[in-house]
């Protein structure tokens, strides 16, 4: 199976390749820190905020776009 974001070989039991799997893990792990920082923050708000930041990694932004598309569908 191919990665849904970059057409590289996907990891076993994942829709992403190794690079995007790591990006997704980082995104999920960091959500806890953000919730702790702002006390109340939904997953959607979190994604919107992270996507806008200059320092957010390119692969993370690709995962966010994918997540947002999935939500819209």
């Amino acid at each position, binding site marked *: 199976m191919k990665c849904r974001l970059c057409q590289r070989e996907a990891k076993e039991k994942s829709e992403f390749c190794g*690079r995007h799997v790591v990006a997704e893990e980082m*995104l999920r792990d960091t959500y806890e*820190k953000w919730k*702790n920082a702002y*006390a109340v923050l939904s997953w959607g708000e979190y994604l919107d905020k992270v996507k806008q930041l200059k320092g957010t*990694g390119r692969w*993370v932004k690709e995962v966010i776009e994918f997540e947002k598309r999935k939500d819209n569908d």
Partner: protein
Amino acid sequence: MQDDLGNGYALIICEKPDAARRVAEAIGETSVKMVRTDGVDVFRLTNGMGEFVVCSALGHLYSVSDHFKDRGVFPVFDLDWFPSDLLKKGIAGIKKRIEVIRRLALNARVFVNACDFDVEGETIGYNILRYACGGKEDVALRAKFSTLTNEDLKTAFANAKIGLGRGLAEAGRTRHIVDFMWGINLSRILSASFNVHNRYRTVSIGRVQGPTLAFVVEREAEIRTFVPTPYWTVRGVFAKDGVRIIVPYGSRVVRQMGVDKMQKDCEGMEVRVSEVKKTHFKEAPLPPFNIGDLQKEAFRLFGYSPSRTAQIAERLYLDALISYPRTDSRKIPPSINYAGILRNLGKLDEYSDYVNELLERKLVPHQGDKDDPAHPAIHPTGEMLRRTLQSWEKRLFDLIVRRFLANFSEDAVFERVVAKISVGQYEFRLSGRRTLRAGWMRYYRYAAVRDTPVPKLDEGDLLKVMKIEREENFEAPPFRFNQSSLLEKMEKEGIGTKATRAEIINTLIKRGYLSGTSLEATDFGFATTEVMEAYSPQVLSTHLTKEMEKKLEAVELDGDDGKKSIEETIDSLFEIITAMKPYQMEIGKQLNESLVATTLALNVIGNCPVCGTGKLKIIRSAKTHKRFVGCTNYPESCRASAPLPQRGVIKSYSKICEYCKWPVVYVITRRRRPWKLCVNPNCESKRVKRYEMQTVPERS
């Protein structure tokens, strides 16, 4: 030519023509005669010790290669030394030079190797003595010098010895063979895998290239998977007798509610300054430059790439203005005539005042930690300028001179003031520093630091908290390597040598693995590391190359023939090639796909505003060879295209035009300031400009 020269002369072999001229001028007591044969300059001279002929190489006259003409053969382990002109096109004059040296060697009585005293210089000299002079490497004398000044050269030739530097030559020759084996075999299998798909490109990787590329790729992956986390910086605005004093809170706050509470708790409170501490501290002069430090400092201050700095330093050395630059040493030994050098530097207006001050003191330089048995730290020689230096040479020379002067100066002394203000459980800290004595920083102005004064506060002063200010921030991703920090990382990890590190970084850029000033790994760089990670991870690890460096160091010190290192290399490579061969098809596919992505990424200037899904990229017409912008969806669903200026470099600006939403590019041409251009030929902004130009009022 040998008839002209007669019999029984001493043949001196230098590394470069400029060095040969310097050597001839230094040791010739009568006038030096230059003879040009087949376009090669040779110097003839006599002194009390007899007749001398000085000739020079032009870098490496001999290089390692395999015996096969077919570049698709691998693995290759049967290597030999060949004249460099046979191996690389575009090296002019090597054949003639070797022939001239060969003829000169026929009637020479004594041979002297006067190439630079380091691994590369020793290898150059050894190969010439062995192959061009007919096996004179064991009987030749070795002249060792660290500057090209007359005094140093005379001493070096008076003390020339047989066998000096033999270990260096063996280590150098072994290094060349080992590196060639790694480079050629891995590059050939990668290139062959690439070519399986009918595309041709040199894909290279090597013993030092591999780990260096891995550093950048690893860092790039960290950046691309980075998610910033929020934090707040807090400042307290205090008032003392009507004067506002802003004091930062000691640490970052990671919870928004924490800041809210702090504001609530502190605002309006009256507090006293709990502590004011003043301490004095000293900063010793920075140690003298070794090549790595010089490269880093020139990059920091002037933006010179490490390889450029090495080139400029080499030029200054050949002009006898500085000592030999390829050194690891941060020490200037007492054998160097400090006072003599300083007195000569004092003849230059810009340094005379400093030199006069220093000559009144006892001259004890501040030494660094590293030592290099071959050469001292880089220092000026005190030799007078014989030509006007170019601006870039002047800057580097000034840097080296000032660092040298600073080394004889006294420590700089500063006062640090730290005031603590406790507001309940929160501690605010104000700190600053003031220069009490500039010391060496006066000489080395490049290290000067600005004072950060603090308002006058005493313990027990009463302050009112007017306001608590906050700023929301986000953690920044790790920095990308630049050429200087990558060089530092290589140094720290102990891979490569002082002579090769800068060149390896250049090769990685040339091969398309890295791009930009802050080095970003390209998709091609990622793919190459992924392939190596999958099939031969040891090539990417620093372990293998560090171990090899240790063995080569042992060869240098013990002077053995390096056979063991070569045999180990053959064993490792054989294993790797055998493991990779069955997967050539997959490796080629992976590399091909990534190269397409890399090329596309380099040429893409932005999104296509016409179709909304394609990317606009720079294309060169096969018919007219002119460049233009076209959409990646052409011809299926989009026909957007636009002309481009045909001269200069075009770079993506990563912004879109505010009028028409087409991408904007940077056009960089010679002798003109770079300019921004919206690529849309029908952009409204251009019409506005034309209208403005037409309606410019005439000058009265």
